[in-house]
């Protein structure tokens, strides 16, 4: 492509500016602020337009705002260029918004609007987007080696596309994705970590639990089969039970009828039996059946009569008693002596006897006392006389001894001791004589007292003798009475009186008993008259009236009971006949199976059914227990489905990540392989063109030159050692950067050659390097149209 001419109607500070391009190198040397960078931006805008930018975009990036003419003129212009043998004129105006932009392409050979290219002119011409274009063909001041040549060419290319601040994005992106991938499936899978492994583990665990659940379900099957078998057995037994119950029913009906028949027979038999009994008893009663009350009354009278027999026995007189009564009747024929009189006589007799015996006893006592007093008087007198004599003698002895002593005292003083002893004996005799004198007085007193007692007793004996005579006269009344009733039997009147009194009492007793016996006999006969009559009526012996009356009573009671039973039996029979026709009880047939056998069979079958039901329930419970556990299967399946879904999602995500990594890696490789070969070759070419000695292989072998490795790292081999470009000067770096940039243009613009815009890039070069740079520029201008913008003549 070749630029022909351009016209800037308004773009930044450039107004109505026209520039005619020549082939090869175009140099614009102008002072700072002329608008060189603006011109470069205008050319770029002609190819690629201006991007829409918001008000928040920085001014440096917002070209539409940055280059809007300050005077408010129309922003735009045109550019004439030649491509593929045709000359076009591309006109653009820029509004405030992208939508207000205009674009027109005119084929200058026809002056007609051309549709060969659209408003995406730059992309269609160069096959590069705006960013790639500007970063490859525009070399700004001090930015040739921007970012330093230490970076790899690949990074430069990345940077070219992504922007400076995003340098190294590939590595970071790859690392970031790689780390994310490892979260899904780590490289060391033995750890069983990562989303996929964890979910797989969960899914496996759930699967095993589901299988366990299903096994439970399977485990339930044999129990269900057993349950069915048991149910079959139960059903079969139930069917048999139905048959059995029918048999039981038939046997039961037979048994019931037979029982009824038996009952009916019994009723009839009982009735007949009672009828016979009743009849036989009825015959005993002849015309009438006595009333029980009548019998009972009679029996009570008879019992009363029996009770009287004791009394009768007590009154009955024995033969001895009868003769005794007869004797007594004769004895007392004239009357019975008054009991009181007898008693008085007895009492008087007793009292007299008592007084008499008392008087006699007193008489004897007084007589005895008199005798004793007489004897005592005599003894006392005798004793007193003796004592008198003794006392007299003693006193004499004592007085004699005293006089003798008084004589000897005067004469025989030397015999004092003997004199003393003689005095003591005299004193003793005096005392003894005193005692005898005292005894004499006492005995004399006692003798006088006893003489008085003797006289008193003689007086009393006289009194008692008088009284005894008086009492003996009074005892003659009893004897008189005894003589009247011939009762004198002994000398003892009192005893005879007592005997008379006993006979009187005996006579009265016997007489009373005889009268009571007669009365009692009459009463007994009256009581027995009814009973005897009744017994006689029924031809019964009247000997044992009470016993026979009891028999009669029992018989009557039997009759009444039997009559009642008979009546009841008749009623029962009639009632039965009302309820059950006797005809229906005829012709009973025996059942196939007896009731007992059927009952036994029923019991067996019920047992069998119960056992089968129990087994059935047991099996069902077991099966249901398994099935209940198996019910968790659904929930586990749901969980498994969820986990599987998550696992699939994670696997899918892992797939996306790995594919993204793969694509990124492939993109990098392709990107490298597509551009790097041409780039490295071009780089070597431009390095050669530069003619820099430092980069040319030294014949002595000290330098191996400069080259880019497979990763497009630029390295300089010097003195057998590889060095990075950073070791070299800024000017050297700028030259290498220039070579690299030209090589980049070679690599990128394979279809259409672009216009290279150099915005005073050589400010860092010394004179020697400047020469080499301008030489290189001139050489490059042979291939590309170059617009070299410079602000100083020295760098032209």
């Amino acid at each position, binding site marked *: 492509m070749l630029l022909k001419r351009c016209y800037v109607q308004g773009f930044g500070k450039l107004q109505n500016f026209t520039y005619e391009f020549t082939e090869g190198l175009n140099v614009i040397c102008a002072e700072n602020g002329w608008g060189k960078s603006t011109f470069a931006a205008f050319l770029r805008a002609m190819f690629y337009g201006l991007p829409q930018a918001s008000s928040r975009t920085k001014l440096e990036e917002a070209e539409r705002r940055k280059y809007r003419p300050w005077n408010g003129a129309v922003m735009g212009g045109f550019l004439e260029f030649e491509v593929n043998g045709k000359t076009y004129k591309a006109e653009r105006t820029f509004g405030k918004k992208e939508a207000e932009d205009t674009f027109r392409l005119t084929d200058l050979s026809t002056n007609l609007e051309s549709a060969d290219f659209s408003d995406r002119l730059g992309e269609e011409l160069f096959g590069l987007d705006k960013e790639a274009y500007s970063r490859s063909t525009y070399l700004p001041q001090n930015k040739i080696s921007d970012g330093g040549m230490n970076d790899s060419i690949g990074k430069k*290319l990345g940077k070219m596309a992504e922007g400076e601040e995003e340098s190294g994005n590939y590595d*970071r992106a*790859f690392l970031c*994705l790689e780390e994310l991938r490892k979260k899904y499936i780590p490289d060391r899978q033995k750890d069983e970590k990562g989303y996929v492994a964890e979910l797989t583990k969960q899914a496996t665990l759930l699967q095993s639990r589901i299988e366990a659940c299903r096994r439970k379900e399977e485990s339930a099957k044999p129990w269900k089969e057993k349950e069915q078998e048991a149910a079959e057995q139960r059903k079969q037994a139930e069917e048999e039970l139905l048959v059995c119950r029918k048999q039981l029913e038939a046997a039961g009906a037979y048994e019931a009828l037979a029982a009824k028949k038996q009952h009916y027979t019994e009723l009839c038999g009982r009735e007949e039996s009672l009828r016979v009994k009743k009849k036989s008893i009825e015959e005993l009663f002849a015309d009438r059946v006595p009333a029980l009350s009548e019998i009972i009354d009679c029996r009570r009278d008879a019992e009363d009569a029996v009770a009287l027999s004791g009394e009768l026995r007590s009154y009955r007189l024995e033969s001895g008693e009868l003769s005794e009564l007869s004797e007594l009747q004769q004895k007392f024929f004239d009357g019975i002596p008054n009991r009181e009189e007898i008693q008085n006589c007895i009492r008087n007799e007793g009292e007299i006897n008592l007084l008499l015996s008392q008087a006699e006893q007193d008489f004897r006592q007084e007589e005895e006392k008199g005798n004793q007093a007489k004897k005592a008087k005599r003894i006392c007198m005798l004793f007193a006389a003796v004592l008198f004599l003794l006392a007299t003698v003693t006193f004499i002895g004592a007085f004699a001894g005293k006089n003798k002593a008084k004589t000897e005292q005067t004469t025989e003083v030397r015999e004092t001791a003997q004199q003393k002893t003689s005095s003591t004996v005299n004193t003793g005799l005096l005392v003894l004589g005193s005692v005898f004198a005292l005894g004499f007085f006492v005995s004399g007193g006692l003798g006088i007292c006893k003489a008085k007692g003797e006289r008193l007793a003689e007086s009393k004996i006289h009194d008692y003798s008088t009284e005894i005579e008086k009492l003996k006269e009074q005892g003659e009344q009893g004897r008189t009475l005894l003589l009247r009733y011939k009762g004198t039997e002994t000398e003892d009147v009192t005893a005879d009186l007592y005997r008379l009194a006993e006979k009187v009492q005996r006579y009265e007793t016997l007489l009373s008993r005889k009268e009571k016996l007669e009365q009692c006999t009459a009463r007994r006969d009256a009581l027995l008259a009814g009973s005897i009559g009744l017994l006689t009526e029924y031809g019964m012996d009247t000997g044992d009236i009470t016993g026979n009356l009891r028999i009669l009573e029992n018989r009557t009671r039997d009759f009444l009971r039997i009559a009642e039973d008979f009546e009841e039996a008749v009623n029962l029979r009639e009632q039965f006949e009302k309820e059950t026709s006797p005809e229906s009880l005829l012709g009973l047939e025996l059942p196939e199976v007896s009731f007992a056998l059927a009952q036994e069979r029923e019991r067996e079958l019920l047992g069998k059914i119960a056992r089968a039901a129990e087994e059935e329930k047991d099996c069902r419970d077991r099966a249901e227990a398994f099935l209940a556990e198996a019910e968790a299967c659904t929930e586990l399946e749901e969980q498994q489905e969820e986990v599987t879904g998550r696992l699939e999602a994670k696997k899918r995500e892992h797939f996306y990540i790995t594919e993204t990594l793969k694509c990124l890696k492939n*993109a990098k490789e392709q990107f490298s392989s597509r551009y790097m070969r041409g780039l490295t070759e071009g780089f070597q070419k431009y390095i050669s063109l530069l003619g820099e000695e430092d980069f040319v292989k030294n014949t002595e072998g000290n330098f191996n030159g400069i080259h880019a490795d497979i990763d497009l790292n630029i390295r300089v081999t010097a003195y057998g050692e590889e060095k990075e470009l950073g070791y070299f000067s800024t000017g050297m770096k700028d030259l290498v950067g220039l070579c690299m940039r030209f090589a980049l243009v070679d690599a990128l613009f394979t279809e259409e050659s672009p216009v290279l815009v150099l915005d005073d890039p050589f400010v860092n070069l010394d004179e020697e390097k400047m020469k080499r740079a301008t030489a290189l520029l001139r050489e490059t201008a042979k291939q590309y149209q170059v617009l070299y913008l410079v602000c100083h003549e020295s760098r032209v």
Partner: protein
Amino acid sequence: MKLLHCGDLHLDSALSANLNSEKKKQRKSELLSTFVSMAEYAADHGAEAILIAGDLFDKSNVTKRTQNMVKETVLRFPFVDFLYLKGNHDEENFLEEWEERPENLKLFGTEWTYYRYGDVVIAGAEFREGNGNRLYDSLVLNRNDCNIVLLHGQTEKYRSADKAETVALGALKNKNIDYLALGHIHSYRCEALDGRGVYCYCGCPEGRGFDECGEKGFVWLETEAQKVSHSFVPFASRSVHEVFVDISDAETTLSVEKKMRDALTGIPEKDLVKVTLTGKVKLSAERDLQYLTRRFEDSYYAFKINDREVGIALSPEEYENDISLRGEFIRLVMQGNYTEEEKRMLLELGLRALAGEEVEACF
């Protein structure tokens, strides 16, 4: 005569649809409740029979609660016959083993079983062990009767010896069938069988997951003068919705939320909702699915967002001349043998990574 044609209740089945444990239990109860309610509906509207076209249960191990509920429901309506044909999910189950099975529970076998109600004949047979071919030949129906045939399986045009549970429509044509009551497909569908009759899938009465969206219920049949009229009765206690929301021009989470809210207008809160995002979005577009889920999940019984259908709005012009690693990456992905979803995910991941953004947020 009035009849209720239902099927595919799948009682006791595992549930998906992003339900938590408690809601799963509740939903299972609702499935049972719907069965009972259908029986009540049939009884209240004078149906003589309920045709259960298979898959009443989901598996052989039926829970005690479900067993009792089904038994009691059958016993509760002795004047309504329950004609129960086992499907591929119904293995030998407790209804067959039910002692003293009530008279109103009528079963079918692997050969044709016929139940006559006046001039209405209901025939049914269960597909087992490749008996299909034999069954078709042995079906005999009187042309003067009103004939209803009950089967469970996937319709095919022609017989297939290999596949069990295949209802060969061709083999059932011109067999005097007035109404072919089918089960197996979980959505209502009714089409002509031949010149005389129709075949009809009643669908399931309740959607159990987001793969069972749409109106669910049963088919109400009325026969008169050898003609069968049928109508679908929506009966589900909750509907399952899948709502597609095109978010092509929505570049932010809030704009996506607004589009979703607009699309979900009118859907009752009791329902289960799955939003499938569609369209192609710019690479720079962002949407926070966790945020969006949180914004809607309390408004519905169950809520789920699927953005796997979303593609990338990226024209070749935007990346073909991008001479950079990013451009190279985009080109590589876009030219790669990936699905739209894969391309979107790879680009999102790669570009986020290159931009130094949090890549885990992509999931």
